[in-house]
């Protein structure tokens, strides 16, 4: 560490070049962070899917409803420990551009099914008791400045009230994310309110969510449930929540992977450019290195010094970039509700740090090795 000052002076030798190299590394790792967050977002939070939850939809299409009567038959099936259901509402708040997802659910069993929606007990109880009450996610509440007690009118697009007046809800609670990446852009309200008020489609629901007693038995339970409703007028397709989310994310399809591929290529390009500049900075100083050798620096020492310089530069630039990316992703979804699971997982943060070190070593290794093998007389004679 006693040579730190020497290394530091080496970096300051050409301040502008060091600055711009550090800045391009900064950009590269800022991009890296954004990229990884984007990947999580396009995966729709598949890693967050509950291990012990199954999703049951109508077999032909998820837009087709299922009879509410299935509820008891599902609950009575072997291996099922809890069941709840949910329906897509598709209402419009003020303007269609203010899109967010709304679901009509059975409040008590719904919150029991999803412990990751965290809200105070008092708010829970208030919601359970208020037929026109709703709970919303933190991100959604912040987006529209809603507070507990606010009244929110939604214009029904599919489900209409008898006189086509807007549906009015009172916000009884605001839920927080129980785990990183939990979608807090959703709006939940009483299924009973929807079912009593809508003019058609009564006693139908969108899909069921089932908790299995033993996650290892998920496949068996799913098969048993589908067999239960086979050859009925509404056949079902049950899959683990993970598989369901995965299939949904796959529908976005190539776009996500193409973006990743392009961006990966570019990340590589920027790093190549930066590494080349760093290597050049060392090559330029061949004479100096030779003088240091004359003064008695060993080959290993020189190698270490050169490596330290390039690693230091990479860490300064890349570290700042990664930090910036982390800060930005802390603020959540940049598109305002379209990519709810936008965050930078710790796993990718670690990967970023490894990449930074790898970049520093890769960029410094060849010139450092050359520097170590220098013959003093040759080096002193060399110009530029």
């Amino acid at each position: 560490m006693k040579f730190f000052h020497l290394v530091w002076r080496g970096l300051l030798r050409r301040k502008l070049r060091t600055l711009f190299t550090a800045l391009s590394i900064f950009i590269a790792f800022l991009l890296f962070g954004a990229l990884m967050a984007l990947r999580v977002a396009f995966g729709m939070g598949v890693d967050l899917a509950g291990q012990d939850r199954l999703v049951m939809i109508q077999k032909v299409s998820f837009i087709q409803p299922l009879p509410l009567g299935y509820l008891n038959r599902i609950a009575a099936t072997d291996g099922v420990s809890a069941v709840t259901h949910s329906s897509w509402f598709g209402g419009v708040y003020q303007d269609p551009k203010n899109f967010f997802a709304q679901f009509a659910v059975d409040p008590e069993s719904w919150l029991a099914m999803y412990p990751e929606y965290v809200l105070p007990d008092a708010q829970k109880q208030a919601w359970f008791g208020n037929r026109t009450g709703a709970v919303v996610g933190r991100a959604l509440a912040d987006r529209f400045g809603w507070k507990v007690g606010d009244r929110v009118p939604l214009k029904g697009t599919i489900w209409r009230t008898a006189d086509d007046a807007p549906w009015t809800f009172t916000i009884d609670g605001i839920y927080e994310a129980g785990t990183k990446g939990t979608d807090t852009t959703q709006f939940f309200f009483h299924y009973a309110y929807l079912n009593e008020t809508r003019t058609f489609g009564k006693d139908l629901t969108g899909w069921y969510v089932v908790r299995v007693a033993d996650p290892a038995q998920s496949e068996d339970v799913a098969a048993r449930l589908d067999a239960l409703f086979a050859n009925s007028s509404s056949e079902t397709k049950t899959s683990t929540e993970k598989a369901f989310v995965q299939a949904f994310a796959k529908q976005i399809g190539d776009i996500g992977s193409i973006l990743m591929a392009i961006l990966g290529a570019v990340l590589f390009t920027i790093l190549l450019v930066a590494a080349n500049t760093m290597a050049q900075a060392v090559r330029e100083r061949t004479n100096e290195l030779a003088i240091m050798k004359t003064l008695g620096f060993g080959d290993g020492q020189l190698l270490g010094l050169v490596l330290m310089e390039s690693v230091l530069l990479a860490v300064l630039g890349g570290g700042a970039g990664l930090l910036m990316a982390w800060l930005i992703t802390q603020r959540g979804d940049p598109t305002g509700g379209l990519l709810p699971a936008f965050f930078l997982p710790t796993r990718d943060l670690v990967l970023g740090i490894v990449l930074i070190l790898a970049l520093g070593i890769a960029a410094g290794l060849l010139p450092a090795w050359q520097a170590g093998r220098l013959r003093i007389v040759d080096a002193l004679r060399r110009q530029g």
Partner: protein
Amino acid sequence: MQALSQILAITAVNVRSIPQRLASSLVAIVGIAGVVVVFVAVLSIAQGFRAAMTTAGDPRTAIVMRAGTDSELSSILMRENTQLVKDAPGLAQGPDGPVASAELFVIVNHPKRSTNSDANVPLRGVEPGAFAVRPRLKIVEGRKFEPGRNEIIVGRAAAGQFTGLEVGRDVRWGENVWTVVGIFEADGAISESEIWCDAKVLQGAYRRGDSFQSVYVQLEREEGLEAFKAALAADPRLNVMAQRETDYLADQSVVLQTIIRTVGFVIAGLMGIGAVFGAINTMYNAVASRTREIATLRALGFGALSIVSSVMAESAVLALLGGVAGGLLAWGVFDGYRTSTMNFQSFSQVAFAFRVTPTLLVQGLVCALVMGLLGGILPAIRAARMPITTALREL
């Protein structure tokens, strides 16, 4: 005049000496090419998606849905209502009455070729009038479906993206088995991502009673939409809205386009900044390696302006080389690449091809040029401000 000839002379020297600094020049070129590839490629996705949604839209085609709905999926119209819509004034008349088709739009789970997992494929039930409303639609293989039978025809793009949709094959969705009897094309319009069948059969299969979701009509005149709307609004039995199909589809593609464009611009912008830093380093390098040469020129009487211009010009040339390389690469790799994605607004799959248009390529080149000029400014100023005497002494 003299200044100009000076600039030209030095620029020519600079550009011709680029090969001497090949390595560092290549770095700048590669950096900028990378940015241009991404910029063009990402925007070509947005372009292709937009094209799939809106091209081949006939301005005379209008779509009528229940008032207050944002997509066909959430609309519902009873048969009486669709009849009233068809009887409204202002519609083109064919041999069998008004050119119109009441339609049903649903989604079926069907496996996608690329992932082999289920995707939401749009299935449209149409009336015979549908073919008159969309005159550009033609059957390119097989035949039309017969009314009343479980037969489907498949859009060219859908047939390419999803498994087992070949003429003569049977597909099973739930308790219904359908036979593929034809493949159709529609000049690249959105219909090519869909599967069509007889509306009456679909009503039965989906237990929709005698309801529809939309009515597609052909207006008598392009500017007749307002009058048609007014006529619908004047009828107290109807609670519907009419819009041009092209407007409707443009609306439907807003969300996905916003995502792609936001992502594209933010990422390409960031990368652009990174590439500018790369270019600055390259040009500093170029200037540094020619310190004595530049000082000599200055001593001979060349002006500061001509030095500045020559450095900027060199940077611009490098950037343009990068821009051309990046544009060509993006064009070669991505133009026409066929894929499909889910449109968030209709929850259904849209098949489309990336489109690298000439406009995009020009935009990419402009980007490259701007990056090159930005990268050249600082080094150029340094070159011009070097004190001649010290510079001449430099190694």
